[in-house]
């Protein structure tokens, strides 16, 4: 937008006057009488401005440095919008960044910055060159795509130093030498334009806004870099691109937004469940491969300690060369979260809130009461024994229509050197089941200030989260499928009906209503960061953070529950406390200097992290009243009841503590030559207390390089390529997450009780002995990863940009809980290093601006990834195993981790048909169809992979006038899924002792539930995952309200799949039953509908 001279304000006039005075000074400056204040060297700027009028930037410079900025508002448009991010950037660097690309230049005199149009080394008409060659003068006007004149556009004559800038009306006049025939127009934020000129002397140019993200700042851990200069595979998701709607696990904010990053919700919409996560395929055979979460520089912080609304951006370090700076914890990827900060200026108040509800997305079709009765009659025999006359939809009984709502109030601002951002977040989730509750209050304060002549930069972040949870009863939903639908919910006395005949038909509603499983959680994340600029190019930093997670659990089972009576427990209560304290201290020394065309950015540091975990638990039973719930453990009668045969189950007292420490030294150098040849090397030497005495230390390193081809001369003629960068990196990272402390030590623990003495006259004593197989050789799991990629920005305006990556990672010395050599080991399993896993894949990200004009803006983002993984070994010299069986679905394990197969490959019988009686026939190893009892393990085969090979998602963002629409399509392809409910409930042999799926009577199958490839289904799916429609309400100019937007979001709206289960979005890690919809415990899948409002004041 351009402010014309006619609408100038009085303040502008004053500046104009000042400018007249300054004219003389300017002349002096140009003669070289330059006097730069030494003070300016030490000034730094921290600013995060997006599309902000440049005059506000100048105001901020004054506020932060006390350096005033003087400029001619007739030559320089004060309202021209700029986007600039600076993190303690030296003032001069900042000014260069801000001004040079906009064809402005500056001089500093005392405490005043003089800004003028045009670059300092290019004067109009360059008198030094004048007259030497014949020339013509070309004039014209430069406008933006909407026809508004652009001021400050650099106009250069190709191959010559000749050039000028446009004035406030977009006009320019340039002398073109006889040899010159190309004019190059450049302007920050716009795509450069090159025009070959002939004899004409007037040229009008329209410039298109640049659509690339090359100026985006990428957080790389212990620093930040411009996207353009990054040499490894890092994906950034800004808050405006986050998934909308009800977000219970913050990781789902970026589901479908980062190629190579798979995030699924195997437990559906349970507000208390965590998402399943994998980055570039499985990385570990054991445990939960959580990525390292770094929040504002605090490694290992808990993502739940901050509210989703406080997250400004998420950076995902995908490859080893990016992650190596985090050493031993980077195998599963590093996710860096930057929280929102305040910016100087008027205090801003914003509120956002939502309310949502959910509906069942799909449910199982089991027999109704009358169907059940009909089948009983059809089978003959005594119907009355099974038919209790009711017709209960148990699933319906177990669900409700939930309401969830959330509110986020944020106040931010700042003055001079101090900025703040304070937020209060409240969320309340219900869940579609009857028990779930999650209430979350999160307060956060972010404070930044400068002191000691601005050399000291101080920042403080305090986040405190409090959660109050009640957990769902997953087994209840499994039972709702099985229980006889002719049973009533309540008996004639109004109590829960319980079948007297057989223990497997318990009332799931009674279980849900009469048992309580609560947890209160407190999470504190406090971090203090001090940075001191020893020299403009040398900064020392100290970062201390404290994170505390306090869990307080309570369980109560009501005396009214039938099982409580029959077992003699008569009410069972327990409590637990689990506290974790994490202390992190990190110091860094950063060096940043340019030597002509050589740019060096180096950092070295030390990190210490100590985690102490402790807890207490107690339980009791036999309560006279249910009033106490778990609040009066001592009232239970069991604890002091020593009568022989007394029910003392659930009576316990326990406490524990464990500690672990990490020490590391790290360094990284980022170097580039001419902004063209990029090099990045890092090393981290890290020691962990968890490992064997002689294996505590590991070295993790990385080297990566990039080549910005598009800056090379030979690319000048390739107009369609705006930016092209090749990059390659190799990095070594580790994993220690899967390990508990003390696994390398020969620990002695309390085991069973033994009788000592004469019959009747002895006593019971606790026995002690080795409680694990100690492994003094325990060491790091290491990942070696090669990444080759290309970043590109193509076509006019760079409307298409993207990245393509190939990676190959080999993870060796896999940490796992393996079968031990028994003998001479004692316990069946040992934590050890064994085996090797290879992941190979391709990732493609494309961002396209399909339409961008005055009223319509259509952005399309495609995120896609292919991953192939293979277990190449699961043995070591010491551990010779060839397979681990995983995923026991109740009739044995159905998946394996085995040499030469993808991780979690299905393993089992091969279906060969049914006999006339409906009995199973399977193929034996000789290829003959035989009955089930003739099949042994030798006949089993590998049946296919359970983890998707392809993940694709597509985000459409369309803005039309005041409307905005965002649609996320998400797809996973190339995997086999198992609906375990079919195995157990699409089987008439279990009828009528348990209810079955309606389809059980459509199949001739009449045999025991057995797993085979009969049950493998194509799991591929395409989901309309998230649709958000927003409308920004027009506001009157005098309103306190600056922005008001309303929106509606639907999630999990529609799924296209051939899978028979409720949802093909299943686990993607071996600990999480990959590809399997489990039968006995599950949470229903829902669609959610959210209405939101956001207002800025």
């Amino acid at each position, binding site marked *: 937008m351009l402010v014309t001279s006619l609408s100038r304000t009085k303040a502008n006039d004053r500046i104009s006057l000042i400018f007249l005075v300054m004219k003389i000074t300017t002349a002096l400056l140009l003669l070289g009488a330059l006097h730069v204040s030494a003070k300016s060297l030490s000034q730094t700027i921290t600013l995060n401005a997006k599309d902000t009028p440049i005059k506000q930037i100048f105001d901020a410079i004054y506020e932060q440095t006390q350096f005033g900025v003087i400029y001619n508002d007739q030559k320089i448009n004060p309202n021209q919008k700029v986007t600039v991010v600076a993190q303690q950037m030296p003032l001069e660097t900042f000014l260069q960044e801000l001004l040079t690309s906009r064809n402005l230049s500056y001089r500093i005199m005392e405490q005043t910055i003089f800004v003028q149009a045009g670059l300092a080394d290019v004067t109009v008409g360059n008198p030094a060159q004048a007259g030497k060659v014949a020339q013509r003068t070309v004039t014209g006007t430069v406008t933006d795509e909407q026809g508004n004149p652009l001021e400050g556009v650099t106009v250069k004559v190709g191959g010559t130093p000749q050039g000028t800038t446009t004035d406030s009306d977009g006009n320019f006049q340039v002398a073109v030498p006889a040899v010159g025939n190309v004019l190059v127009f450049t302007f920050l934020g716009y795509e450069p334009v090159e025009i070959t000129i002939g004899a004409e002397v007037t040229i009008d140019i329209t410039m298109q806004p640049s659509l690339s993200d090359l100026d985006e700042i990428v957080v790389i851990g212990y620093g930040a870099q411009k996207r353009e200069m990054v040499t490894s595979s890092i994906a950034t998701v800004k808050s405006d691109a986050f998934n909308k709607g009800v977000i219970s696990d913050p990781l789902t904010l970026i589901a479908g937004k980062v190629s190579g990053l798979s995030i699924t919700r195997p437990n559906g919409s349970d507000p208390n469940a965590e998402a399943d996560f994998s980055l570039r395929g499985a990385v570990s055979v054991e445990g939960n491969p959580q990525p390292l979460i770094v929040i504002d520089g605090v490694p290992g912080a808990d993502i739940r300690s901050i509210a989703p609304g406080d997250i400004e951006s998420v950076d995902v370090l995908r490859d080893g060369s990016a992650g190596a700076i985090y050493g031993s914890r980077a195998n599963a990827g590093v996710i860096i979260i930057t929280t929102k900060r305040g910016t100087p200026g008027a205090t801003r108040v914003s509120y956002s809130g939502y309310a949502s509800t959910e509906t069942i997305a799909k449910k199982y079709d089991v027999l109704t009461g009358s169907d059940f009765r009909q089948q009983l009659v059809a089978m003959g025999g005594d119907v009355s024994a099974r038919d209790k006359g009711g017709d209960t939809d148990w699933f319906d009984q177990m669900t409700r229509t939930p309401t969830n709502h959330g509110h986020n109030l944020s106040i931010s601002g700042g003055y001079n050197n101090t900025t703040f951002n304070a937020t209060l977040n409240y969320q309340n989730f219900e869940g579609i089941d009857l028990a779930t509750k999650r209430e979350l209050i999160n307060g956060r304060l972010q404070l930044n200030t400068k002191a000691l002549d601005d050399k000291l930069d101080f920042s403080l972040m305090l986040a405190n989260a409090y959660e109050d949870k009640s957990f769902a009863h997953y087994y209840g939903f499994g039972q709702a499928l099985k229980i006889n639908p002719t049973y009533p919910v309540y008996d004639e006395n109004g109590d829960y009906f319980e079948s007297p005949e057989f223990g497997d038909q318990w009332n799931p509603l009674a279980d849900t209503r009469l048992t309580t499983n609560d947890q209160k959680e407190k999470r504190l994340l406090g971090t203090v960061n001090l940075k001191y600029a020893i020299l403009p190019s040398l900064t020392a930093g100290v970062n201390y953070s404290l994170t505390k997670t306090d869990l307080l659990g309570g369980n109560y089972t009501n005396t009214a529950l039938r099982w409580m009576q029959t077992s003699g427990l008569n009410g069972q209560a327990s409590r637990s406390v689990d506290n974790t304290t994490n202390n992190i201290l990190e110091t860094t020394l950063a060096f940043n200097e340019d030597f002509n065309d050589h740019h060096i950015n180096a950092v070295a540091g030390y990190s210490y992290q100590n985690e102490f975990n402790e807890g207490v638990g107690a339980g009791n039973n036999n309560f006279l009243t249910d009033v106490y719930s778990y609040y009066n453990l001592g009232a239970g009668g069991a604890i002091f009841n020593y009568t022989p045969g007394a029910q003392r189950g659930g009576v316990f007292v326990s406490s524990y503590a464990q500690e672990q420490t990490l020490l590391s030294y790290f360094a990284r150098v980022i170097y580039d030559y001419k902004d063209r040849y990029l090099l990045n090397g890092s090393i981290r030497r890290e020691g962990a207390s968890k490992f064997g005495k002689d294996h505590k230390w590991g070295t993790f390193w990385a080297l990566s390089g990039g080549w910005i081809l598009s800056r090379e001369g030979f690319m000048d003629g390739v107009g369609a390529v705006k930016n092209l960068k090749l990059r390659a990196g190799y990095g070594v990272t580790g994993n220690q997450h899967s390990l508990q*402390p003390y696994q390398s030590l020969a620990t*002695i623990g309390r*085991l069973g009780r033994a009788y000592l003495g004469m019959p009747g006259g002895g006593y*019971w004593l606790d*026995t002690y002995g080795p409680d694990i197989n100690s492994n003094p050789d325990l060491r790091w799991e290491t990942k070696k990863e090669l990444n080759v990629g290309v970043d590109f920005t193509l076509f006019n305006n760079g409307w298409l940009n993207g990245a393509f990556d190939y990676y190959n990672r080999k993870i060796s010395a896999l940490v796992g809980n393996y*079968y031990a050599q028994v003998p001479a*080991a*004692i316990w069946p399993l040992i934590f050890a290093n064994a085996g090797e896993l290879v992941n190979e894949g391709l990732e493609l990200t494309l961002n396209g601006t399909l339409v961008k004009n005055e009223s319509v803006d259509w952005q399309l983002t495609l995120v896609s990834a292919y991953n192939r993984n293979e277990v190449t070994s699961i043995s070591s010299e010491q551990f010779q*195993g060839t397979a681990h069986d995983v995923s026991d679905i109740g009739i044995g394990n159905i998946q394996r981790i085995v040499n030469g197969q993808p991780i979690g490959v299905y393993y089992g019988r091969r279906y060969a048909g049914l006999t006339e009686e409906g009995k199973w026939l399977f193929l034996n190893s000789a290829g003959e169809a035989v009955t089930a009892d003739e099949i042994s393990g030798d006949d089993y085969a590998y049946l296919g992979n359970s983890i998707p090979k392809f993940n694709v998602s597509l985000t459409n963002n369309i803005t039309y006038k005041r409307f905005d629409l965002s649609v996320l399509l998400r797809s996973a392809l190339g995997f086999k899924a198992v609906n375990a409910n079919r195995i157990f409930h699409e089987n008439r*042999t279990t009828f009528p002792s348990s209810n079955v799926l309606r389809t059980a009577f459509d199949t001739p199958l009449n045999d025991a539930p057995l797993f085979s490839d009969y049950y493998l289904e194509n799991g591929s799916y395409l989901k309309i995952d998230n649709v958000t429609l927003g409308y920004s309400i027009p506001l009157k100019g005098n309103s306190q309200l600056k922005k008001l937007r309303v929106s509606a979001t639907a999630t999990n709206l529609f799924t296209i799949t051939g899978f028979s289960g409720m949802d093909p979005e299943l686990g993607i890690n071996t600990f999480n039953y990959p590809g399997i919809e489990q039968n006995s415990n599950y949470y229903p899948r829902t669609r959610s509908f959210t209405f939101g409002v956001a207002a800025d004041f």
Partner: protein
Amino acid sequence: MTTAIVKKCGFFTVATIALMAVSSCSELDEKVYSKDTSSNFYSTPGQVIAAWNLPYSFLQGITYSVHFAMEEFPTDEAAAPTKSGQGYENGTWERFHKHTWTSQEPFIKYEWSNIFQGIGYCNSFLDAMENRDLSDFQLPVSQAQMVAEIRLMRAFYYYWAINAFGNVPIVTQVGIPSSPPTAPRAEVFEFIENEILQNIDQLGEKGDPTWYGHFTKSAARALLAKLYLNAEVFSGAPRWEDCIAQCDAIINSGFYSLDETWDAPFKAYNDNSAENIFVVVYDANNAPGFNAHEQQLHSSHNQTYDLQYWPWNKIVTQESFYRLYGENDFRINQWLVGPQYYTENGEQHPIYGWDGQPLVITPEITQFVNMAGGDGQGVRNIKYEIETGVQANMNNDLVIYRLSDIYYMKAECLMRLNNGVATQEAVDLVNEVRARSFAEGDPDAVYTTATLTMDELLDERGREFAYEMKRREDLIRFGRFTDAWWEKAASDGTKELYPIPLEILTTNPGLVQNEGY
């Protein structure tokens, strides 16, 4: 520039560099809070006693839960058929019944792991006692006796190993050696024999303050007698005389006598049984793990016995075995059969099966895998007294060796030395036990040298020792293990040994799989 840094850096540089320098490897040593470590343990008498008793207490968790299944389910004595589709457990029990198990059966793996975990506990204690002088400690028994007992416990676990797997590695230290190689069965036999012989003199005897549930001299002799009884199977060379010598030593010791009734050794409080030599001591609260009632009773029996859980309705006996008992044999009362009741206010009320009809237990079992019904089929063993109102675990101590078996063992050896023909001494030994299970004067109470054939002796062992985890080795020793019965076809001789579990085999290249797997 360097001087500029030094001048300007002040506190922060000093702090930074200092913090970067401060660290040493010692900070990475782990501090253990809620556990102890082997380097620190065994420093008080209580700690030594706690470690000494571990190989004993470990038996509680593994004997009935796993070892019982391994020794009973492949025999004609016990089975866990599928009833109304319940308890199919992936066909595990069907394969044990039909002798079609593979090296991937979970229970075979549990048995192996359990045995060697017990051996590991023994080795751990013996390692710790090596070069350690506890003469200053006030201990209930001498250090030498503790060591001897634990070496006997190790021999005992090795007996389970030689019996089930035959050829196994001989390991006497924790974690050493790496990849221990399979030792031939005869070598394992020799190892067990030597261990018993070398340590028997240091053991205590019944009546000592800590004898109950521990390895006494008599228990060691019982183990040795068992070893000799099966020596032909284990090592290829029969040792009948040696077995008789050990049996005589026990019989003549005077410490044991036969109980008055057949069921006295199995009462809920059987610690005063006169004939029990070695038991696994159980207690509903202190030492859980014996849940015969839970595994065997029908779910509705919770009413009969006022149980607080639904029993699992799992283990039954096949009809042919039940039919070995005469109606006049008191021991038939160890089987639940016929209509089942519970008693309230002195009145009997029927309990109900899963089909809603009054429950009647029949000796006949329609089929091993019955998806449609059959929950009341198959007689249930209540040899071990089921206390009314007992918890999930029973108080009865589980009998490993008892005097009756010593009598029968000696009788068998006498017969075998006499070409399989009973001698009067053998008949007398068996009759002495058998007589108490019949009414006075019942002609069936006694055998003669003519009636006590080898086949009859095997049947009589079945009647007397049903569910005492002896049937598998008895059938093997009598050459009858591979016979066909019920749904089992005649099986191959290689089934007399279990395979080394696949997961164990692949872990250790030193192991050699048994023939036939």
